[in-house]
Every structure is written in C-alpha cells, then in structure tokens.
C-alpha cells in the first residue's frame, strides 16, 4: 500500500515538473523570444585599423 502511494507521489511530481518545463518552454519561445529577450551571450570583437604595412614591432624610440 505504502509502496504504491510513494510511486504515485513520484509520478505526480514527475508530471508537475514536466508540466512546468513545458510551460517555461512555451513562455520562452512565444513570449520572451518574441519580446527580444534571450539567454545572455558574450562575444568579443577584436578590431584593428591602419596597419599600414607594418611587419615589425614599433619601437617607442622611433
């Protein structure tokens, strides 16, 4: 009897968490993404300009 009840509880928790996950995914895809919100993403841009054909290091004394 007790074993059945624990199984039932576990199943209920499983169903509830599954339901919450689905709801979160629905919210994220339908509301958050369309409103422009997304996961935080980091990206680095490395920029150069005016190399002017310089092959060698620049000495501060130059």
């Amino acid at each position, binding site marked *: 009897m007790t074993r059945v009840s624990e199984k039932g509880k576990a199943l209920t928790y499983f169903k509830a968490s599954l339901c919450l996950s689905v709801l979160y995914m629905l919210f994220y895809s339908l509301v958050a993404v369309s409103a422009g919100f*997304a996961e935080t*993403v980091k990206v680095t841009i490395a920029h*150069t300009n005016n*190399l002017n054909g310089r092959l060698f*290091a*620049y000495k501060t004394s130059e």
Partner: protein
Amino acid sequence: MLGGLARRVASVDKLKAEKHPVILVDSGRLFKDPRVGEDAEKVSMNARLISRAYSRMGVHAVNVGDLELLQGIPFLKEQASQGLNLISANLVDASSKKTIFPPYFIYNVENFRVAFFGLLSSDMGQEIRKAMGEDAVAIDPVKTAEEMVARLREEADIVILLSSLGLDKEREIISKIPGIHFVMGGHEGRFFHTMLKESETFVVQSYWAGMYTGRLDLTLKNTTSIFHDAGEKFRIKKEIADLDRRLERIKIVLDEGKSNVLEFTYQKITKKRAQLQETLDSLNRLPYTENLFKWQMVPLDNSYREDREVVDWIRKAGFTASAKK
C-alpha cells in the same frame, strides 16, 4: 616594443582560446602606401605577406580602404580568392553597379546576429583612381550606408560599420542614419581610451601600425536593446573616490581655519560629486535586460610571443627589422 605581425598572429591564437566566440575585423588601410617612395614590387610582396597572415588568423572581415585600392582590383580579388575576407558596400563594378566584394558579413552567435558592413571614401586622388582602373568605382558612402542599415536592421540584430571614411564623415552618417550600433573606424588611426558616443552610436578607432588591438566585449541580453558602456560605472566610481579624497584634504584645511579661499573649491567639487553620483545611480537602475559593452585598447607588447611560422615567412620574403622603412 609594440606590435609586429608575428606577435599579432600569436595574440589572436591566444584570444581564440578564450571561452566565448571571437570575431576578428579590420577597418582597412592594411597595406603599405606605395606612394611614399618604396619599390612597388616590395610593397606588393609586403601586402601578400599581410594577406597571408590575416587569412591564417581567420580574420572574418577586412574593409577595403584606399591603400588597398592602390594595389589594384585584380590583386585584391586574388587575395580574396586565397582567403582574405574583403568586404565593401560602396566599391562597385562601374558597369553593373554590383559590389566587387561582399558588402557585409553576418556572424551568428546563439540567438544574435551581428552584422558588419564596410565603407570607404568616394573622394579619392588621381593615383587611387588610376590604380582602381576604369571598371571599379566607389559610390556615395552616405547613400550606401542608408541602404545598408535599412537592409541589415531586417537581417541582423546588431549593426556595425567598418569604416575607412574618417571621423568627420562617420559623424555625418551617424547624424543622418540612425540604427548603427558601433562604428569601428580607421583612416586617421586615432587612439580611443573610451568609446565616443554620437547619438545612440558608439565610435572608435584602434590607433595605427598594429601596436594595439581594440577589444570590444559585448554582453548580449536582448535583441532590441541599445548598448550601455559597462566600463562607465567603474570610471565614475573611481572619479568619485578621487573627489572624496580631495574633499577630505580640503575639509581638514577648512576645519583648521587656515584658509577660507578653498571654500568655493569645496562647493564646486561637492556639486560635481553629486552629479556623478546621480549618473551612477541612474546606471545602477538600468534593467538587467540591457545590452552592455566594454572597450579596451590592448597593447601588443612583449608579453605576447611571436608566431614562429610568420617570423619565418617574413624572413624568407627578405624583410628585416632594420630595413623596414
């Protein structure tokens, strides 16, 4: 000692080893100016070496500048076919009016699309026109920017202009065309400790001769948000701390009754401090969902080793440090 091609290649390898994605871009004027008197063949060999190194680094986009044009379109097409990712939105074929190189480049990172488009000046001297030949022409950069921004706002979330126009023309574009997030410029080769803010656009250049790398770290949270300078809070906090120290020193003098002259200075600094605190408070109130950026100029100093393969290329091509001029 700052810069050097072999050191740049090594620094890029180091940067690529970081956890998050790295986009490598150049605003142009990559090659040597052949008009300064050096042997044309040597200048061309120098340009080939640089192209090879930039291809090896996997630079995602190189904007065509005036010094590139001096090498001629066939040369540039050859370099592009060998892996140099040249872009230009306003360098077009004279008859078809189609761009000679891709006008833009889009980098996809997770849910974000970062677009780069390239522009160069259409006002160019006779020597550049001659080197370009009759088949190529640079059309109006302002009109091109207008068309590009309209298109890229549809196709991307972040729009970045790689410019070889110079600051005055860039300001004109920003004032006429909203929607560009960053202008990464060149031409003058200025040093920018912090980004210059023009309307909602941030402008920057990364000095010259390859001595520094301009590093722009983006924290993207929202595809529709504008950008805020993450370094601003740090700078304001530091400035407030400096003012507090000054106020403390002045207060000691005032309390001792030695001088009343400093009273005015005390009031002035107090007012400035209050203004800074107000700015800091408003920055602290920014919602979590706003996009942030951090800009820094990274010196290519001796802490970076030189890439041995590139050193070898340079040596085999006959270039030596003492004969570099």
